[in-house]
């Protein structure tokens, strides 16, 4: 017989819930609900990215909006160049006009954010504690204000993507197909993170969170381990940003704002810091609040605040912590 832990059962339940909800929405012919579940899926992915840095590596990044936004803007810029047939850049004699192929878009989004994260992480990881929180915030703010002030791609007004990007021959405009793409990517990313977590690298990373001095004393440089994790974490969040841009067919400087960083952090915390499926639960709860409470009262943020405060003060370990107990290392 399968011997599953409570956390594994919970994870299974989360995956099933998302699938059942989308199936139900299809059955009831309510495409809007599929879009909602898609949104949960994408935001969860952003949280899974942050959770790698925050939960496993102990890096409290208050600037992950930077990577979410970079993913979004790469999508918007590539698509708008392709649609307007404007030259983006020339490299090695090739004129690049942008692309509407999701695979290329994801590739670019992930690579460019990796570069940005390497740079931001390289400087930020020299600092510790509050200084780290604030310097990551500062870098994200830098990009935020830059995106507002730079007029080429819409400035403050943002940038529309007039047509959803392509993924092979799938009709990406069909909500269910787009959901399937996002959902598969989320599962792939979670699988990747779970492998990382239990790998030699993950062992060093989680040790870096607990005791950097110990890690250094055995001869593993915490800086390199943390920087690598920070970059991978940013890449995942950027992929989510790219999907989010395609979902809304619109990107705006708001993706870079510190409230976005705060929200991604909320997904992680509500679900449970360091828990594999924590961000999925967190993002789900967040959207549930936004749409259901938002339908009842326009002041739903007040109740979100109260819930968040309650979880921080009284339910340490988030929802997964409450339902499945403390983290266990083997």
């Amino acid at each position, binding site marked *: 017989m399968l011997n599953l832990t409570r956390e594994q059962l919970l994870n299974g339940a989360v995956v099933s819930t998302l699938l059942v909800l989308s199936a139900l929405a299809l059955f009831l012919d309510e495409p809007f609900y599929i879009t909602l579940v898609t949104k949960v899926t994408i935001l969860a992915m952003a949280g899974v990215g942050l959770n790698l840095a*925050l939960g496993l590596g102990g890096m*409290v990044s*208050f600037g992950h909006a930077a990577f979410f936004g970079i993913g979004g803007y790469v999508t918007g810029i590539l698509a708008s160049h392709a649609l307007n047939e404007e030259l983006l850049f020339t490299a090695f004699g090739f004129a690049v006009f942008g692309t509407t192929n999701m695979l290329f878009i994801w590739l670019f989004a992930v690579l460019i954010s990796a570069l940005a994260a390497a740079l931001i992480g390289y*400087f930020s990881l*020299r*600092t*510790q*504690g*509050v*200084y780290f*929180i*604030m*310097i990551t*915030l*500062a*870098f994200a*703010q*830098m990009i935020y*204000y*830059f995106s*507002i*002030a*730079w*007029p*080429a791609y819409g400035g403050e007004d943002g940038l529309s993507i007039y047509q959803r990007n392509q993924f092979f021959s799938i009709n990406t405009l069909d909500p269910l197909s787009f959901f399937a793409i996002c959902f598969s990517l989320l599962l792939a990313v979670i699988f990747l993170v779970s492998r990382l977590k239990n790998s030699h690298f993950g062992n060093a990373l989680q040790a870096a969170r607990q005791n950097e001095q110990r890690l250094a004393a055995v001869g593993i440089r915490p800086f390199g381990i943390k920087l690598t994790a920070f970059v991978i974490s940013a890449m995942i969040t950027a992929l989510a940003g790219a999907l989010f841009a395609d979902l809304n067919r619109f990107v705006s400087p708001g993706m870079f704002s*510190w409230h976005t960083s*705060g929200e991604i*952090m*909320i997904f992680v*915390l509500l679900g449970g*810091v360091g828990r594999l499926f924590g961000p999925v639960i967190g993002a789900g709860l967040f959207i549930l609040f936004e749409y259901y409470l938002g339908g009842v009262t326009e*002041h739903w*943020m*007040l109740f*979100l*605040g*109260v819930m*968040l*405060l309650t979880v*921080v*003060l009284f339910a*340490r370990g988030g929802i997964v912590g409450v339902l499945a107990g403390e983290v266990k290392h083997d």
Partner: protein
Amino acid sequence: MTTTLIFEQLLNGLQFSMMLFLMSAGLTLIFGVMGLINLAHGVLYMVGAFACALIAGISGSFWLGLIASLVVAAMAGAIIEVGVIRRLYQRDHLDQVLATYALILIFSEATRWLFGAFPLYLDVPELLSKPISLFGFFDYSSYRLFIILIGVLVAVGLYLLISKTRLGMQIRAGESDREMIAALGVDIRTLYTLVFALGAGLAGLAGALLGAIQSVEVGMGDSVLILAFVVVVIGGIGSIKGAFIGALLVGIVDTMGRFLLPYLLSLVLPAESAASIGGALSSVAIYLLMAVILVVKPKGLVPAHA
């Protein structure tokens, strides 16, 4: 480009600096003494502005409003400290960030609920509504000069409070050794509430002062909060002196950057791109400044616990 214009921009920068100082003094004190990151500090700025607009509206006196902003924000601070913040001192930074972020959501929405989404207006007091002639060669807003004066007075007052009074001695002791101060018989809970209320009051005062030249609305504290954090981090967390230096740096670099960069670039670039590139660069200038300072001095310019 005239000398007068440069001089005027410098004074604007100074006024901005003093407002930032009022915000960051409390922030840095709260971090230095209690080890707490308080994102809800911007909310107290907003509370002060609303209190001032409300009381000034009812009584017709800006000055009563200003006093109300101090009192109401300090009281709100004390209530938050006793109700929530107190439970966070022993927690890690992540919990503090999220709990105080939750407080932002709660206070902003509650204010929107009470006052609606439209901004309130607060007029500059009659006494300070006319520009004043400086050195006989140019006119400058007397209200902005008043803000500069308040900033300087608060800086001097805080310096005296911390270096000369019994409360200041306890605050300094609290920064260096929490157990010792408890052993000395200081009621640490009351001290923490007092420090928090003091910081809150100063934030509220800043909100009220600025409310008269900007609009009083929900979310007004957000951008100020982030700037105040930049100031605190540049200055060195926990150091009032650092906050003062940081505020001067940030206020002047930001104001002069917005003013000078487009102009300087227009000397070498076509006008349109000079304006857009200059605008983009100047809006990130202070964050660049902060990043550079932290890379060179990871604990800020005046590390408090050196």
